[in-house]
């Protein structure tokens, strides 16, 4: 066995802001049929990072810390998001509240520009990223495939970028593979996590085969008929896609090329005489 080749069972490790991350599947904690199914899905996914959020607490429910205790018991790192924020100012205040509650300076930064597409507002995103990095946050910006926005975010100090595959919750897969491939080529050394729009394990595998470092998803697992089983399906697809990337995919061609040797084909040339 050639030990110089990457071992498909133990692929090259991923480092995010200097933290070594075991799993390339990041999972959301929302929309599961029950807290128990959420916990089992996180375990089945083998996720080492899960996304969480903050919402208005009601005096009647007073349930937020119970949820956090459950997540904490799973031994995973949490990444709070700023989901639903429409301005940089809202996102900045939300990130600060999340940092105090969850005790982490990691933040999945979302500044949403449109209700129908939940498309990132790249201008607000950059403004919020600059402010939060100044306040000591490790910012994971939820962005589009736009190369210049990505470059500005990198300049602002974002060490990781999270481009969308398709709008949040659509499950449409890689809507713009050409642009995603360009982004990957443009930033060979920046950890890139495809976030949002993944619907099937094959979508996640395709992103990993392109060389993306990880995939973040939520709805595709939480809304599956059997979320726990879907979580392990995604884990397998992401591991396979990563191994395929590390193994080096063949070049695509336009014309057919026989795989069986042509030389020595029986009856070859007999019809010429």
């Amino acid at each position, binding site marked *: 066995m050639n030990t110089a080749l990457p071992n498909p069972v133990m692929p090259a490790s991923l480092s995010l802001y200097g933290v070594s991350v075991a799993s390339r599947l990041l999972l959301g904690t929302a929309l599961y049929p029950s807290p128990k199914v959420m916990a089992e899905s996180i375990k089945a996914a083998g996720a080492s990072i899960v*996304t969480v959020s*903050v*919402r*208005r*607490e*009601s005096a009647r429910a007073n349930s937020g810390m119970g949820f956090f205790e459950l997540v904490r018991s799973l031994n995973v790192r949490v990444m709070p998001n700023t989901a639903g924020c429409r301005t940089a100012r809202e996102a900045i*205040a939300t990130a600060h509240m999340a940092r105090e509650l969850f005790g982490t300076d990691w933040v999945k930064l979302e500044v949403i520009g449109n209700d129908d597409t939940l498309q990132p507002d790249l201008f607000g995103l950059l403004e919020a990223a600059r402010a939060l990095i100044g306040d000591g946050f490790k910012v994971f910006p939820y962005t589009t495939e736009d190369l210049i926005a990505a470059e500005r975010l990198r300049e602002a100090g974002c060490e990781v970028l999270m481009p969308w595959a398709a709008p*949040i919750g659509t499950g449409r897969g890689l809507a713009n593979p050409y642009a995603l491939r360009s982004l990957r080529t443009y930033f060979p050394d920046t950890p890139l996590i495809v976030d949002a729009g993944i619907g099937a394990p094959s979508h996640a595998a395709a992103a990993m085969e392109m060389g993306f470092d990880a995939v973040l998803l939520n709805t595709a697992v939480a809304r599956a008929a059997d979320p726990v089983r879907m979580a392990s399906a995604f884990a397998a697809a992401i591991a396979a896609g990563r191994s395929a990337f590390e193994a080096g995919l063949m070049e695509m061609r336009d014309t057919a090329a026989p795989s069986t040797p042509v030389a020595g084909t029986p009856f070859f040339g007999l019809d010429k005489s």
Partner: protein
Amino acid sequence: MFNTRAPPTPGKSDGPDGRIGRARRGNACIRNKAIANIRQHRGNPDTPMQLKVFVNGEATVTSADTLAELVAQFGFAETGVATALNGDFVPRGARQTTRLVGDDKVEIVSPRQGG
């Protein structure tokens, strides 16, 4: 950056030299009036101070003097929630010294599921 109410820091409505702009002056005027009301009530122990503030978007009448008291009145554990006042984060340690005035918009949040 954080809303601690004192001293005033230059904001969006401020002029380039840090002078207080019109919007901020307007707010300060309302606040001074509210603080005057509070002082009046404090002088009279028979009249408990009542303030109308917005908590998580809902109008609420409260006798709380500070953000910390408001959080306690709602029955929240001190470390179980995070707060913002009029759009700016207020750290846990600053709630005690953050005085409420009429029409303040308070956000009180806790951990929740997210994607």
